[in-house]
C-alpha cells in the first residue's frame, strides 16, 4: 500500500494549514493573525448613529436664501420677503414690475440649478416657489452622511481607539464598533457633538425679555448661555438675542487646542486660516463696541464686547470647561463639524470584566460539553468512537483555523455555535456508524460494510447539513454583530464537519482496515 496517496496528503495539508492559522492566537508567531474577539468578549461599544441629514438640506437652503438676498442687494432689487418653507422650498415675494424682472435676471444668472415653479400672482405681488432638484437633494443627504462619517472617523482617531470600525450602514445610518473603549459616555459625547461653531452679533437694539414673551425681531433668534455656579449642579441659563446672520463659522479653522487662563481654567484657543483671519479682521473692525457671540451648537459660550479690530485670526472660547470637556471640544473643532446633527439609535456596550466572564463561561461549557460527547462516543462505539472523537478534535481545530484565516469575529453566540457544532458534528459519524452496523448485521465483511456505510450515508449527511447551512446563511445575512458571529461559526462548523466525517474519518477507517483487512470492526 502507498503511504502517501494524494488524498491523505491533502487531508494532512488542510489540517496543518488550520493549525498554522490557529497558532498565533496562542503564541506570538507567524502569520500573526489572531482570532478576533467580538465586542461582547473583549469589551467595547457598538453604536448606530442616525444622521439627520435633512438638516443639511435645510442648512443648504438657508445658505441659498442668504446668497439670493446678497445678489439682490447687489443688483438693487427689492424683495418682499424670502423664506424657507417646511418642505425645504424657498418662497420669494416681489412686487410686479422692475423688481420681478430684476429677480428673474438674478435667478437665471446665478441660480440656474434651482427649479422654479410657475409664479403665483396676487394683488400685484408675485410669489415664486424655488426648490432643489430631487437628485441634488438626495446628493446633499448622501454627502452629509459621508461627511459625517469622515468627521466622526477623525474624532475617533484623535480620541485614541485602537482598531475602530466605522462604516455607513445603509441610507443615513453609521455603524461604529469601538473595541476596548474605557470611557463610553465621553466617547458618545464626543461623537454626538455637532460642533457647529459660529460667530454672530448680539442684537442689543431690542429687548431680550420681550422677545422671549413675544416673537423675536425678524432675523434674530434667542440662544442661551449655560453657566454653573461653583459647587452647584443647577444650571443658570442666560438668554441672548442673536442676529441669525452667520459672520464666520468653524469651517475656516486650522487649529484648536486647550489653553489655560491666568486662573488655570481650561479654555480653547482657535486659529483661523488666512481667509478666516481676513473675515475675522473685517467683522471685528466693522462691529467695534458691539458684542460678538461665540456660538457652539446653538449655545452661547461667550459674548465679549469687541474693543478693537483683531488681526491675526486668533480667538478663544471660554466657558466653565473641565479639562476633559475642553480636550474633547478641541478635538471636535479640529476634526470639523458634523454637516448635520446625529442621534444614537442603537448602543451596545460591554464592559471588559463582563467580556472576560463570558470568555470563561463560554470556554468552560465548551470543554465540559465536548468532554461529555467524546466520552459518550467512546462508550457507545468503542474504537470507532475514538475515530469520531479524533474527527471532532480536528473539526474544532478547523473552525479555529477558519476563524483566524478569515479574520472573522468570535463572539459569545459564536462560541455557542462551536459548542452546538460539537454536538452536531458527531451526527454525521453516528449516521455512518449506524449504517455500518446495519451492513455488518446483513453479513458483509468489515471493509465492505465500511465502504457501503460511507457511500450510502454520504448523500444523507450532505442533505442534512445543507439545510442547517441554508439557515445559517440566512442568519448571517440577517444578523449584525454578535449574532453574525454565531452564523459564522455555525457555517464553518458545518463545512468542517462534512470534511472530517466524509473524508477524514473515512481515510482513517481505510488506513486501519488496509493494514489489517481481516480485522474485526470495533464499533
Amino acid at each position, binding site marked *: 500500500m502507498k503511504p502517501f496517496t494524494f488524498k491523505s496528503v491533502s487531508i494532512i495539508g488542510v489540517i496543518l494549514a488550520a493549525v498554522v492559522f490557529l497558532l498565533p492566537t496562542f503564541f506570538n508567531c507567524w502569520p500573526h493573525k489572531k482570532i478576533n474577539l467580538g465586542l*461582547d468578549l473583549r469589551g467595547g461599544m457598538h453604536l448606530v448613529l*442616525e444622521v439627520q441629514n435633512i438638516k443639511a438640506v435645510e442648512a443648504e437652503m438657508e445658505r441659498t436664501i442668504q446668497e439670493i438676498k446678497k445678489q439682490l442687494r447687489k443688483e438693487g432689487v427689492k424683495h418682499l420677503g424670502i423664506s424657507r418653507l417646511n418642505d425645504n422650498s424657498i418662497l420669494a415675494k416681489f412686487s410686479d414690475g422692475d423688481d420681478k424682472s430684476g429677480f428673474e435676471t438674478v435667478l437665471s444668472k446665478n441660480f440656474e440649478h434651482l427649479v422654479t415653479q410657475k409664479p403665483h400672482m396676487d394683488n400685484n405681488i408675485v410669489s415664486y416657489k424655488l426648490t432643489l432638484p430631487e437628485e441634488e437633494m438626495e446628493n446633499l443627504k448622501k454627502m452629509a452622511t459621508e461627511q459625517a462619517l469622515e468627521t466622526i472617523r477623525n474624532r475617533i482617531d484623535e480620541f485614541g481607539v485602537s482598531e475602530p470600525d466605522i462604516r455607513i450602514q445603509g441610507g443615513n445610518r453609521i455603524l461604529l464598533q469601538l473595541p476596548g473603549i474605557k470611557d*463610553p*459616555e465621553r466617547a458618545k459625547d464626543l461623537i454626538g457633538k455637532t460642533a457647529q461653531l459660529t460667530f454672530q452679533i448680539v442684537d442689543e437694539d431690542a429687548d431680550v425679555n420681550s422677545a422671549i414673551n413675544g416673537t423675536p425681531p425678524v432675523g434674530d433668534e434667542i440662544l442661551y448661555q449655560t453657566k454653573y455656579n461653583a459647587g452647584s449642579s443647577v444650571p443658570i441659563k442666560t438668554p441672548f438675542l442673536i442676529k441669525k446672520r452667520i459672520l464666520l463659522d468653524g469651517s475656516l479653522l486650522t487649529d484648536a487646542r486647550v489653553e489655560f487662563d491666568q486662573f488655570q481654567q481650561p479654555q480653547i484657543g482657535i486659529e483661523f486660516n488666512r481667509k478666516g483671519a481676513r473675515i475675522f479682521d473685517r467683522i471685528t473692525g466693522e462691529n467695534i463696541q458691539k458684542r460678538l457671540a461665540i456660538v457652539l451648537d446653538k449655545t452661547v459660550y461667550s459674548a465679549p464686547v469687541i474693543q478693537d479690530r483683531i488681526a491675526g485670526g486668533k480667538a478663544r472660547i471660554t466657558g466653565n470647561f473641565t479639562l476633559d470637556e475642553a480636550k474633547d471640544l478641541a478635538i471636535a473643532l479640529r476634526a470639523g463639524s458634523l454637516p448635520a446633527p446625529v*442621534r*444614537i*439609535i*442603537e*448602543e*451596545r456596550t*460591554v*464592559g471588559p*470584566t*463582563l467580556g472576560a*466572564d463570558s470568555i470563561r*463561561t*463560554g470556554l468552560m*461549557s465548551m470543554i*465540559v*460539553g465536548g468532554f*461529555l*460527547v467524546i466520552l*459518550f*462516543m467512546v*462508550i*457507545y462505539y468503542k474504537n470507532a468512537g475514538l475515530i469520531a472523537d479524533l474527527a471532532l478534535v480536528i473539526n474544532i481545530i478547523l473552525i479555529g483555523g477558519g476563524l483566524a484565516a478569515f479574520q472573522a469575529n468570535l463572539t*459569545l*453566540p459564536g*462560541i*455557542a455555535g462551536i*459548542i*452546538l457544532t460539537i*454536538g*452536531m458534528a*458527531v*451526527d454525521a459519524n*453516528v*449516521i455512518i456508524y*449506524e449504517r455500518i452496523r446495519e451492513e455488518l*448485521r446483513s453479513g458483509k465483511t468489515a471493509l465492505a460494510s465500511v465502504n457501503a456505510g460511507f457511500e450510502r450515508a454520504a*448523500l*444523507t449527511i450532505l*442533505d*442534512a*447539513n*445543507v*439545510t*442547517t447551512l*441554508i*439557515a*445559517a446563511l*440566512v*442568519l448571517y*445575512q*440577517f*444578523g449584525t454583530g*454578535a*449574532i453574525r458571529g*454565531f452564523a459564522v461559526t*455555525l457555517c464553518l462548523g458545518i463545512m468542517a464537519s462534512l470534511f472530517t466525517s466524509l473524508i477524514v474519518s473515512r481515510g482513517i477507517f481505510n488506513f486501519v482496515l488496509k493494514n489489517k483487512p481481516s480485522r474485526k470492526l470495533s464499533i
Partner: protein
Amino acid sequence: MQLIKSDINIDFIGKQKIGFILSVLFILLSIGSLIVHKGPNYGIDFVGGTIIQIKFSEQVPVGKIRSGLSDIGFNNASVQNFGADHDNEFLIRTSNLAMTDKGLSQSIKDAVMASTGIAPEIRRVEMVGPQVGKDLREKALLAIFYSLLFITIYISGRFELKWILSGVTAGSLMTAVYFLSIFNVSMAVLITAALAVTLALFWTLRLKYAMGAIVALLHDVLITIGIFSILDLDFSLPIIAALLTIIGYSLNDTIIVFDRLRENIKGSEKTDSLPLLFNKSINGTLSRTILTSLTTLIVLFALYFLGGEIIHNFAFAMIIGVIIGTYSSIFVASPIVLLAHKR
C-alpha cells in the same frame, strides 16, 4: 453498546392520532398564550428600550435600587436579579432612551449609588431605538420566512426532483412579499399570509416532502415561541438565531427519515403497504435520531448550565427546539407525507 435495539419495531403510524392530538394541544396552548400576552414578550431588541446590567461588590436589596431609580423618575424601570444570588448582579430594564445631560447610564449609576451607598460597576448597556426595534422585528420575520422557503425548495428539489416547480413557486412568493412590503403592509400579517399560501400551493402542487417539512418546521417554531410566551421569557435577537438554527437542525432528523422512506418506497408504489414502509423507515433510523439528539442535548445542557446568564435563554430555546424537532420529524413530518401520498 446499543440504546435502541436493531430489531425495534414501534407502530409510529398507528400512534399518529396521539401525536396529532398532542401537537394540536401544544399549538393551541402556544397560540392561546400568545393571544393572552398580546404577542411574544419582546425584549428591547424588538420594541426599543434600554437594558443596563450592574454588579455590586456586596449584597444590595433590590428595593433600594428601585427607589434610587424612581428618584430620578424611572418609575417604569424593572429591576431583576441576574445570574446567581451571590453574584449581586442586576438587570435594569427601562423604556427610557432619553439622554440626560450626563447620559443615561451615568445617571442610573449615580442614582443607584445614592440610594444604596455602593458604586455599581456598569457591565453592559444595550439601548435600541424604537425605529431600530421595528426594523429588527421585520428583518427577523423575513429571515424566518426566507429560511423556511429556501429549505423547502431544497427539499422538494432533492426529494421530488421538482427544482423548477418549487423554485418558481418560492420565487413568486418572495416577489409578492417584497412588493407588498413596500406598501406598508404589516410584516407579520404578510408573512402569515405568505406561509398560508405556501402551504396551499405545496398541497395542490403535490410537493409531499416539502409539505411535510414545512408543516413540521412551523410546528417546531410555533411551539418554541409558545413555550417562551407561556414562561414569559424575553424574546430577543439570540432567540431568533436559535429559531433559525432549529429550522435548519430539526430538519436533519426529518431528512434522514425521508431519505430512508424514499429508499424503501422505491419499487413498491402500492398504497396499502405505505404505513408499513413508513414505520419501517422511522424505526430503521430511530437509533440515529435519538443518538444525535442526545449528543446535541448534552452540549446544549452544558451551555445552559455553564454558559452564563447572557446565553441562558438561547440555550433554553435550542433545548426546546431540539426536543420538539426530534418529536416532529417522527410524529408530524412523516404522517403528513403519508397523508399527501394517500391523496
